[in-house]
């Protein structure tokens, strides 16, 4: 640690502080939309943090990460529909099913490399998308309304918007802490080593497949949690959550914020969603601006916002 007071740390701290103060601001101006938007940003940031773990640190370009949002969300939705509203059942099950799905997908996908990996993760996401579209009992294409949020026996009341907001924020910060501990552990070093040179890592005796798979499962589970939160936030789950463009959005968040940086996905999620919101107020055709913007980020700001703050040339990836 050279210096704590870098522009990057300043921005990160400012964003976290702003997020902590959002409910206060929303209460003061009496605007619940700000709170709702911020909740959404935090939940998607959690998904982006999980994607960053495999994409930024592990070098695994998963183009199907939104699938776990759907898996986590659908577990909540289906259980609620079947009358199981206890969060103590719903949430662990949502995490377990996401983990299992990630284990199966990871075990198959991690045999492939490069473009094949991108495409096969996309294919699995499409598969689960079509399963959801085919679930006639659970709303099929139209989605499933969740009439009762997860119940935690009076311990915590999710239908209170402020309480729910702080729960999401706490989980996001916990996830960032977890990623920090992971990437600085021996496990994280092996995964990052496998990104730089998989063959060499195997040559010095690390079974990298297992490490990468474990990393993939952790990320999938974390994103499943984001899905459970999203379902509780919108009181609704539909196949659209898993649409492949959503996976694309998550990748954009990670790259925009800065791949392989701890707070990058959060910064990226804030930047993307606030930008979308702002542009859609200026013009109905906001995507005509944001599309080329992605291209410009790719061409000229490869390290994302994180890279810009750190200074040119210092980015990883």
């Amino acid at each position, binding site marked *: 640690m050279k210096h704590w007071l870098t522009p990057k740390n300043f921005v990160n701290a400012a964003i976290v502080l702003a997020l902590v103060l959002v409910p206060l601001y929303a209460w003061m101006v009496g605007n619940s939309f700000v709170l709702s938007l911020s909740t959404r940003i935090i939940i998607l940031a959690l998904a982006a943090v999980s994607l960053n773990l495999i994409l930024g640190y592990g070098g695994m370009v998963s183009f199907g990460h939104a699938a776990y949002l759907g898996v986590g969300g659908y577990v909540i939705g289906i259980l609620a529909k079947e009358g199981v509203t206890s969060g103590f059942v719903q949430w662990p099950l949502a995490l377990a099913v996401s983990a299992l799905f990630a284990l199966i997908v990871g075990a198959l996908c991690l045999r492939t490399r490069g473009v*094949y990996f*991108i495409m096969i993760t996309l294919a699995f996401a499409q*598969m689960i998308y079509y399963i959801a579209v*085919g679930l006639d*009992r659970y709303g099929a294409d139209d989605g499933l309304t969740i009439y009762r949020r997860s119940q935690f026996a009076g311990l915590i009341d999710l239908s209170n918007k402020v309480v729910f907001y702080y729960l999401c924020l706490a989980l996001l910060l916990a996830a960032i802490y977890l990623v920090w501990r992971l990437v600085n552990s021996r496990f994280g070093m092996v995964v990052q080593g496998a990104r730089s040179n998989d063959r060499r890592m195997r040559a010095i005796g690390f079974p990298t497949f297992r490490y990468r798979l474990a990393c993939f499962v952790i990320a999938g589970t974390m994103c499943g949690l984001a899905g459970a939160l999203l379902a509780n936030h919108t009181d609704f789950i539909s196949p659209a959550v898993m649409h*492949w463009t959503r996976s694309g959005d998550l*990748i954009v968040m990670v790259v925009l914020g800065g791949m392989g940086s701890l707070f990058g996905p959060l910064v990226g999620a804030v930047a993307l969603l606030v930008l979308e919101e702002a542009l859609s107020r200026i013009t109905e055709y906001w995507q005509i601006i944001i*599309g080329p913007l992605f291209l410009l980020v*790719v061409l000229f700001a490869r390290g994302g916002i994180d890279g810009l703050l750190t200074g040119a040339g210092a980015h990883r990836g």
Partner: protein
Amino acid sequence: MIYFIEQCLNGLQLGMLLFLLAAGLTLVFGIMDLVNLAHGSLYMIGAYFAATFAAWTDSFVLGGVLALLATLLVGMAIEVIAMRRLYGRDHLDHVLGTFGLILFFNELVRLIWGPAGMTLSLPMWLLSAIEILPGLYYPLYRTVIILMALLVAVLLYVLVMRTRIGMLIRAGASNREMVGALGINIQLLYTLVFGLGAALAGFAGLMQAPILTVQIGMGENILIVAFVVIVIGGIGSVRGAFIASVFVGMVDTLGRAFLPDILKLMMTPAAASTLGPALSSMLIYLLMAVILVVRPEGLFPAANR
């Protein structure tokens, strides 16, 4: 039996359509090492151009030819403005940059043609059905699609394997610097290849336009299927793309047509009618997963990669 043959022909027609898309994708990937998600946008643009030009010229064929040329030009323009800068970058960069292009083109089309879809109606002389086998009538236009795509496949083969341009393309794929050093304008060659891929996608779009509604985002779902095709076929291999297209087209169409009935033999009708549609739309993805597990490089990996 008649029904089965008819479904096989439908499968073949879908396969041919997929081939037109996949050929462009796999050429661009094989030669420029570029993953182009925006390929589906070119398919969409081709269909929109066709609908517009056909209305202007009052001729389906003339409109189609104009649309093809226009898509070719759009493709070359995209290459010069954006794609050229992405060569040699990470695949993640390609995914992200072309993802941005998809958003751009969807919105541009909405701006120009409006949010409502368009229809392109067939001329009278293409509306009839022909008797392929005794008692089997098949729409003439679908037959035309199959034949045209087969013709394109043959032309493409001749172009790549038997002409000087094709020789340069293949040479450019194996060693860009060497071809450049021998005095070939490799940049122009790449622009042409990208334009060719765009024209193929546009051709697919305009051929499909009379069957479907021309609408925003029409290229996206079929693009993902085209990706499945080139992954199964082995990325970069046109021959693999052809075989995999027919295979995927058949599996998808026959799966949708017969899987629900087959399932009914094995389980209760209620369960079968729930599972059937879901399983048949998953079928090609399952197929891809199985093939990638067995052969991680696809069925016909391009030799030089």
